[in-house]
């Protein structure tokens, strides 16, 4: 019981510390997929970073293939007015305007994942209620090309390197 409580407390403290730390802007960069593969909301994000700027590309759940929301410039937020957003970015804000609705995404690091709060406000007087959604996004598994063709790589990268080595050299397992 004591061990379980200690473990729970440690996990909670880790969770709290992970959710409050600041991040470099590069931590947001990459391709991200919703941790909930059955989500009816945003399925994928692709975030590009250049200097202190960032752009967000989003896809929403559609049938038979996801809908492309397009790419928008994101606002970068740091801890204070003197912070360097490149090294101390804490959140991104991306606003999508579809004409009949405006969706604002607040994106924050959550450990090695991203926490995304989405707020959709309707502009079309349809009577639909504005709604909020929360998502967690994980970094997409990487895919790399090698001289011998396409290698289906999976994170972590260490695993990828080992796979490449074994294919190219025939060596199996071990270090």
């Amino acid at each position, binding site marked *: 019981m004591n061990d379980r409580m*200690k473990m729970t*407390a440690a996990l909670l403290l880790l969770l709290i510390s992970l959710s409050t730390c600041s991040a470099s802007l590069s931590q947001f960069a990459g391709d991200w997929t919703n941790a909930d593969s059955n989500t009816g909301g945003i399925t994928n994000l692709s975030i590009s970073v250049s200097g202190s700027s960032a752009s967000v590309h989003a896809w929403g759940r559609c049938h038979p293939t996801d809908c492309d929301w397009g790419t928008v410039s994101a606002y970068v937020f*740091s*801890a*204070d007015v003197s912070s360097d957003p490149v090294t101390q970015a804490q959140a991104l804000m991306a606003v999508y305007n579809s004409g009949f609705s405006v969706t604002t995404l607040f994106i924050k690091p959550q450990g090695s994942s991203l926490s995304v709060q989405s707020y959709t406000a309707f502009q079309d007087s349809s009577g639909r209620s504005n709604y909020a959604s929360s998502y967690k996004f994980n970094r997409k598994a990487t895919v790399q090309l090698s001289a011998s063709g396409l290698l289906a790589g999976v994170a972590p990268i260490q695993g990828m390197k080992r796979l490449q080595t074994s294919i190219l050299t025939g060596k199996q397992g071990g270090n």
Partner: protein
Amino acid sequence: MRLLNICVMAALLLMLACSGQASMSQFAGTWSNTDPATRGITSLQINVSGSSAQVHAWGSCHPTDCDWGSVQAQAFASGVSSNIASDASTLIAVFNSGFSETTLVITPYGSGLQVDSYDRFLDGSGRSNYIASYTFQKQAAPGGTSPGGAAPGGTSPGGAAPGGTSPGGAAPGGTSPGGAAPGGTSPGGATTTIDLTGVWNCDDGGKYYVRQLGTTVWWFGEQSPSNPTWTNVMQGTVSGNIIYADWSDVPLGSVMSSGNLVLQIVSNNQLTAISKTGGFGGSTWTR
């Protein structure tokens, strides 16, 4: 072990408090920041009527808080078919001062409110957009008077937030932090004609050796050159005509304290403390 139990319980309560749904009425009322020393938003007044809400905000200013004004908020529920009046979980209020825009994301937090503030500068000053988080508790005595009172000549809605200026800016009569400041500071906060470097005297009887490099200011202060009772160091950032600083005593003297300072650059030869924590004694510096 007991501490662990308390931690676990507190964390679970926190998680429960964060995940609850709310009705619009849960947002209504007059709210004060749980941090009375905040340099950001001090008070909120939220009026609810059916499924709509108005948010009135006040920011920290001296001598009285700055009135950011009142804006229509957007309310959000969990789905497009939800009843906003009974199921609202979030309010978003946007304040535009002209030189900056502050977006407040307001969610219930137990019996209080959690407010995440996103400040974005529109003036090309080069200042970084910044976020701040606050918790608010409902004011005990709903008295009818507005929390902030008359907007003074101080900073505006993002007001005294870390770094200084802010959105509400609408403070009548007040210079907004991004605005022109005595001595010709530029909106970005970088001084153009002010140079604080030098030796200053303070009404606490001490002598302060100040160095300014761009928007960063340091000092070493001592009560006396020999056997001083106290000595302190300070590091701050100039934003407009305001310096936001941290200070700490150092053990050349015997007093050991530390805290924050907000100083107004009255002129190239005078500084005045707007707010002080940690028991700092001095209020006016001249040279």
